[in-house]
């Protein structure tokens, strides 16, 4: 499906990606890397939006640069925040589908179906400038899936989503993969990608550091704690309930309504938080995952790369 052969992309003297070779068969992939690691550059190379300085790229067996017909089979949801004042999501998604060569009526029908699929039906006629970050994220997803692509590429799709939204997005992506379609999910938050159960591509400093299954990555992460920042007006009660439901490494109260939770299984904490919010009625205002788990993973990989550690399971 996607083949990269020693691909290097330079932005003048800055290296975007560095000698990456890949051969991806249809399936679900998680592209993981900290901010600035080269994820977006790699995606743009795969999509033919950038031409590699060195090496070659193939998408569905052809060079995607200047061959935009290949994009009929691809849906892309960039991490960028769009700003179209006074445009409704239905208008925008319809326009995006029309750009695939559909007539207005067919495009509008497909746009409506896609917006229904991402649960935005109730606001399709409201200007997108009035949407929350999470709603705009869903509209972006709708434009990526409306033309029914074979390959879906999402760049940081969980940005701005609340816990329910994250759960729904995860379920949607699992369904997408289960229906035999391919998915590349780029993120800098490990648990978000992990929940979709993809094969991992780990990128750091423009280099592909490793690739492998979730089990293989988890093996590396076995001793790397994850840190979550949770905001709630009842933070003490939340901490108590959370510690009863899952194993926590530590809890640190950083403010009256904020705590940092260290855990070896962030997914378990997410499930517990949903349960606490639903059953105990404890409000959760904000949930953030720090990069620490990923940082520790990449720290380990860098040590392996430099030869400071023996090669691990996933290399």
């Amino acid at each position, binding site marked *: 499906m996607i083949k990269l052969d020693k691909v290097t992309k330079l932005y003048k003297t800055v290296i975007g990606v560095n000698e990456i070779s890949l051969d991806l068969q249809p399936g679900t992939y998680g592209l993981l890397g900290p901010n600035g*690691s*080269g994820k*977006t550059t790699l995606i743009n190379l795969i*999509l033919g939006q950038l031409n590699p300085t060195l090496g070659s790229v193939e998408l569905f067996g052809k060079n995607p640069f200047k061959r935009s017909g290949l994009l009929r089979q691809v849906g892309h949801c960039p*991490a960028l925040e769009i700003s179209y004042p006074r445009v409704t999501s239905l208008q925008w998604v319809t*326009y995006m589908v029309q*750009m695939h*060569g559909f*007539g207005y009526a067919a495009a509008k029908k497909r746009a409506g179906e896609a917006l229904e699929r991402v649960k935005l039906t109730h606001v399709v006629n409201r200007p997108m400038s009035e949407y929350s970050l999470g709603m705009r994220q869903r509209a972006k997803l709708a*434009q990526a899936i409306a033309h029914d692509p074979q390959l879906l590429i999402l760049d940081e799709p969980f940005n701005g989503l609340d816990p329910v939204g994250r759960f729904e997005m995860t379920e949607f992506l699992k369904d997408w993969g289960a229906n035999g379609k391919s998915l590349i999910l780029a993120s800098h938050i490990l648990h978000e990608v992990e929940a979709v159960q993809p094969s991992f591509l780990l990128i750091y400093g423009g280099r592909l550091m490793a690739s492998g299954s979730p089990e293989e990555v988890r093996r590396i992460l076995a001793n790397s704690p994850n840190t979550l920042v949770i905001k709630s007006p009842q933070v003490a009660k939340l901490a108590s309930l959370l510690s009863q439901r899952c194993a926590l490494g530590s809890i640190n109260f950083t403010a009256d309504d904020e705590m940092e939770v260290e855990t070896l299984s962030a997914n378990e904490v997410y499930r517990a938080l949903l349960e606490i919010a639903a059953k105990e009625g404890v409000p959760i205002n904000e949930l953030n995952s720090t990069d620490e788990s990923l940082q520790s993973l990449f720290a380990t990989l860098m040590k392996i790369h430099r030869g400071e550690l023996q090669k691990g399971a996933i290399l």
Partner: protein
Amino acid sequence: MKNWIMGALATVRFELHRSFNIQRIVSMVLLSLVPPGILWLLLFGASRAPGNAADNVLAYVLFTIIFLVALVCLLSLLLWATPVVAGELEGKTWAFIAMRPGGRIANFLGKYLTSVIVSFAIAFIGLTLCTLIANYNGSLGTDAEAWRKWSRLCLIFLMASIAYSAVLSMIGTLFIKRAMVVGAGFLIGWETILSTLPAIVNRLTVSYHLRRLGELWLGWFLPDSKIEYEMIYGPPDPAWLHVGAVAIVTAATLLIGCYVVVNRQYISSEDG
């Protein structure tokens, strides 16, 4: 090809649809009211002036109309045609458009057509109101003559919108930052100064050919200067040659614009 056409038409529809809001409509109407407003003030002042002053003003009515309408037409083109790529990059929508099969060309052509429609609409309204005002005073000859001039001017302004929009759109693909400044520089430096130079190089400008078409179709529109003018520039070529020159400039700049927009690697993300 089908995708380009469908995409371009979809872009025109989308762009016009999102322009239908009160601020944009008011700004377009105000812009198109500038020429008739100024013309009315000039004629009103002239009607109250003593002696030959009124005749001097009335002799320049057609030239004044052309100058004022051209000014607002070009201003609207600068606003609509030059940000063809910059607008999408600033709005961070380029990544979505470029991801469509033929999306880059479709968007470029769609925005080009939109700028032609908007700028010609502004010119058309301004020109029609100017003709009504001037005709009321009888400054454009008989009623039939006035509307004959109006129809010829409409054609010239349509050609101007089509040609200048293509040139400015091409500039918009080449210069992402300050495309409007470069566009204004082109209109002043190239199209205004170069077109008036008494040298063969003036034939490279669109305004030279439009001016000569004006002479052919409207008759001489400046008082007492035809002999001097033709001594410097020579007689106009046949109309088809001037129309052909404008068409070639339009086609060439659109082709260059399409080539640039397809091949250039526009970066709209700060993320690596």
